[in-house]
């Protein structure tokens, strides 16, 4: 049985095309994926991300408990700061990727992927041991929207949350907005400036309507999962189940920059990750652009010198650059930027070139 978010009726009213995503009936597009994509880059877009999970970890041992999970160092977080993390298993494989927010001392919020909420919650509980913590999965209580794009801050201000109050990049605020307790963070999954707002289910439709109304003159549009995918790909953000899974370590996934190699505390999978830091990885994530006219898709094979060396994890057209782009894993970890590879598309090989991961230069205004 698929689930519906509290914004389902809003999507239907807006003529969205609905698809099943991780057990949820979600809007894949309202008008056109390309139009929605370009609008987020140029103006602003509003996403229903209520399917994502909110897990709260609190208590005297909250920090030391969380430190046992991630290759990242949660101790570095000041109050109201956010950190991109991965849960790793004994083999260093990624159980999920998530954002950890420090709300205050002994109180953390974990925002996790929709498809992994139950896995993550059980993972936390299974490793609770003697830590004095309370682990609460409040995913059924809260809904979430993402307001993204160069006009996001202006629109949020017009909706009544002034710029002076808005959190800085990768920070979160617990505050009152539309008369309700909310969590507002300056985070997102598009490569643009923007916010993610968590609010009680019962208030999400009101917030959704308000942002669309106030953002009208600044070009806001509701955006579906289709454009969410092309936006994140262009800005080199991984998607769980595509670039990330339990057989892939953060180092293999190109997430070395997120790892604290000097972290003293033990965490699950640390041996494997430390070993990989010294001795290298089994495969590596590459980004590529198609030279020949073809589109690479999830599951297509990657070749070099007529030998299969890997597999595509994501691929699509880049609406911003009007080229075909993709990500994939290759076993040859010596491949470099500008090297040519081939992608097998319908039994024919097409040339592609390895590129920098971030296809678009981040054009956030900064804040």
């Amino acid at each position, binding site marked *: 049985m698929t689930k519906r978010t509290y914004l389902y009726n809003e999507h239907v009213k807006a003529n969205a095309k609905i698809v099943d995503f991780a057990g949820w009936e979600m809007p894949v597009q309202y008008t056109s994926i390309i139009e929605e994509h370009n609008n987020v880059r140029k103006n602003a877009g509003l996403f229903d991300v209520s399917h994502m999970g909110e897990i709260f970890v609190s208590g005297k041992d909250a920090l030391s408990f969380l430190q046992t999970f991630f290759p990242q160092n949660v101790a570095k977080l000041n109050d109201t700061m956010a950190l991109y993390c991965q849960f790793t298993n004994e083999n260093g494989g990624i159980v999920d990727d998530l954002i950890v927010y420090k709300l205050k001392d002994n109180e953390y919020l974990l925002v996790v992927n929709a498809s992994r909420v139950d896995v993550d919650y059980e993972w936390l509980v299974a490793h609770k041991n003697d830590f004095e913590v309370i682990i609460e999965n409040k995913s059924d209580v809260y809904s979430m929207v993402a307001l993204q794009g160069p006009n996001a801050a202006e629109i949020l201000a017009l909706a009544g949350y002034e710029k002076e109050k808005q959190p800085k990049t990768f920070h979160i605020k617990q505050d009152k907005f539309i008369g309700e307790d909310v969590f507002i963070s300056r985070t997102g999954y598009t490569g643009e400036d923007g916010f993610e707002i968590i609010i009680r289910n019962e208030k999400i439709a009101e917030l959704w309507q308000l942002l669309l109304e106030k953002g009208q003159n600044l070009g806001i549009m509701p955006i579906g999962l289709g454009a969410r995918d092309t936006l994140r790909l262009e800005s080199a953000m991984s998607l769980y189940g595509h670039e990330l899974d339990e057989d892939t370590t953060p180092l293999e996934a190109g997430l070395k920059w997120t790892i604290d190699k000097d972290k003293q505390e033990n965490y699950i999978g640390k041996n494997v990750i430390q070993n990989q830091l010294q001795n290298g990885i089994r495969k590596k994530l590459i980004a590529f652009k198609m030279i020949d006219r073809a589109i690479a*898709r999830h599951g297509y094979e990657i070749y070099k010198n007529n030998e299969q060396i890997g597999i595509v994890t994501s691929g699509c057209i880049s609406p911003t650059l009007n080229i075909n782009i993709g990500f994939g894993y290759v076993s040859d970890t010596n491949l470099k930027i500008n090297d040519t590879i081939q992608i097998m598309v319908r039994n024919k090989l097409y040339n592609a070139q390895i590129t920098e991961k971030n296809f678009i230069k981040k054009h956030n205004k900064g804040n």
Partner: protein
Amino acid sequence: MLEKENIFCSKSHEYVCEQDGNCYIGLTDYAVEQLGDIVFVEMPEVGSHYAKGEIFGTVESVKAASELYMPVSGTVEAINEDLIEKPELLNEVAFNEIWLIKISADAYQQDVADLLGYDEYKEEVE
């Protein structure tokens, strides 16, 4: 423009239409609507022959690649060259004003017998 009363549609959402001595194959309006933004069309070689039900090309939207199946058997006489550079025309132009390929059909009447007339097809998909 192809007259709707001459159009036959397959369950895989291609149409075929014989008009003014030519035989055109294209995508139904329902298919275009379902695909969303079309970003790539892979066309067959002119002169190649395909049996009814065989794959003759691919159409790709932002989200996915979908194969194109021959609604009738025949030999490719021409492809719509405009779609190579501008696949988005499929989204912009009425479905019966844009075709994918022109063929010479082997046995048109016989092959369309189990296809749906356009009106019947629309009722089926909607």
